[in-house]
């Protein structure tokens, strides 16, 4: 292994607020998987919230400053790149950096709010880009078992691939990168229609009715295309698709549960870790992967 490769295997890490609470298992499984694959993280010192939906829908200057504070911290820490595993954080960070590089007046206002100059552009990457950079081969090399029983609907949601001009990643309508990563675990993926449809996102608390409706459509489309599990790469999507199945059962009597796993948990299972180590037992829908029974009946 060259020293060049070692350098690339170290990534700046912006966990995001959900990772410290409701998406704890995303953080746990990501860190464990990264370690097994020989990569490491350098967490941003004293990172703060990216501003999320609430800032950008109410105050564009506040939103820009809250996101850029973290980009600037990464620069001060000497980082070149930074992984934001939450799709919403990722989107806020790349969008804010794009906007201030495009619009000098916004840049000036943001710098004034932060009492600091924006000096260094950071390559902010999402979780899918991270695994593609580490290399799908690395997952295959380190695989302890094949998840051959799984038929996975890869759910991208909104913010990993949109807007295409800013994320510059995969395809905005028919992305396929998550499928490549999931297939490296030995699982099968399904072709379905709702992979980039919205789950209702931040309306989860104030308009739960909308989230329940939208998430129900996503789950049903996945099921009707033969999926037995959904893979996600966003804490908000996970909350809406997993935890909101409880409310879904009340709105839609007869609703059948469908497990929703973080991409990192699927990879972790393939790398030989168990459900408890990966935090899968923290989900609302219980899930345990069962290896196929070996066929001994061959005459």
């Amino acid at each position, binding site marked *: 292994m060259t020293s060049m490769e070692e350098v690339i295997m170290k990534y700046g890490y912006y966990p995001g*607020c959900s990772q410290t609470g409701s998406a704890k298992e995303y953080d746990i499984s990501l860190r464990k998987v990264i370690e097994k694959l020989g990569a490491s993280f350098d967490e941003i010192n004293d990172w703060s919230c990216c501003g999320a939906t609430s800032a950008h829908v109410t105050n564009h200057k506040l939103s820009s400053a809250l996101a850029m504070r973290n980009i600037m911290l990464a620069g001060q820490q000497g980082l070149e790149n930074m992984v934001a595993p939450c799709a919403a954080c990722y989107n806020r960070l790349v969008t804010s950096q794009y906007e201030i590089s495009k619009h000098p007046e916004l840049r000036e206002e943001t710098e004034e709010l932060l009492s600091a100059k924006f000096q260094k552009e950071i390559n902010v990457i999402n979780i899918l880009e991270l695994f593609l950079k580490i290399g799908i081969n690395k997952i295959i090399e380190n695989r302890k078992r094949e998840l051959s029983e799984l038929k996975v609907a890869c759910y991208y949601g909104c913010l990993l691939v949109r807007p295409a001009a800013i994320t510059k990643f995969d395809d905005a309508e028919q992305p396929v990168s998550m499928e490549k990563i999931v297939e490296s675990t030995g699982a099968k993926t399904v072709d379905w229609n709702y992979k980039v449809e919205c789950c209702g996102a931040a309306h989860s608390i104030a308009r739960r009715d909308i989230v329940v409706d939208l998430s129900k459509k996503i789950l049903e489309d996945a099921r009707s295309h033969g999926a037995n599990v959904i893979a996600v790469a966003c804490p908000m999507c996970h909350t809406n698709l997993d935890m909101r199945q409880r409310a879904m059962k009340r709105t839609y009597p007869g609703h059948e549960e469908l497990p929703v796993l973080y991409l990192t948990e699927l990879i972790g299972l393939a790398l030989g870790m168990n459900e408890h180590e990966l935090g899968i037992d923290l989900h609302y829908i219980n899930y345990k992967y069962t290896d196929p029974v070996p066929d001994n009946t061959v005459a």
Partner: protein
Amino acid sequence: MSANDLKATKKLQASFISPTPQTGPDQDHINSTEHIREHTIADEISERTFQDVSLCYQCGKCSAGCPVRYYMDIAPNKVVRLIQLGFYEDALKSDTPWLCAGCLTCSTRCPKEFDLAKFMDAVREIAIEKGVEIKQKNIIKFHKAFLDQIKSHGRAYEVGLVAEYKMKTMDLFQDVDSAPGMYFKGKLGLLPHNIKDRKGVKSIFKKTSGK
């Protein structure tokens, strides 16, 4: 295209746009009306979003693909039309900007590359600044509670968020089925994660709350 062709094209364009010379009383007249022209809400939205609201030519592709259109009172493209035509009150009072989930499907598909999600951000922002009465009260309360957490701790603290939201809405029973479950599973911490530079984050809030 040769240099001569280019010159001819430029000449043609100039004559098309401005048939009269650039001096004289007509030009002065134009300048003076420019000067007194009111800065409209449409102008303000264009400035904040770095795009001209008149870009939208009302094809309706945004509304056709909007996942939350069903719940809105006015179709998203019609909110743009209201702003274009100067019916600001109708647009600012609409449910639509508040129900927009910011999924960016519209912005991705727009044939004019008009970023409608960003437009909706500006409409909401201006509605708040103008003190317009907003029907989707719980959504506003949620955003307020969320931002309060960041203002106090530097990060979103979910227990604090839910508690504050419940106080604001007096909706004490919603989510009683999920929050305790998450708490007992050890997902929700009892204490917030405070960052060190809370002062710095607070000052951003202070400086931006004036406008």
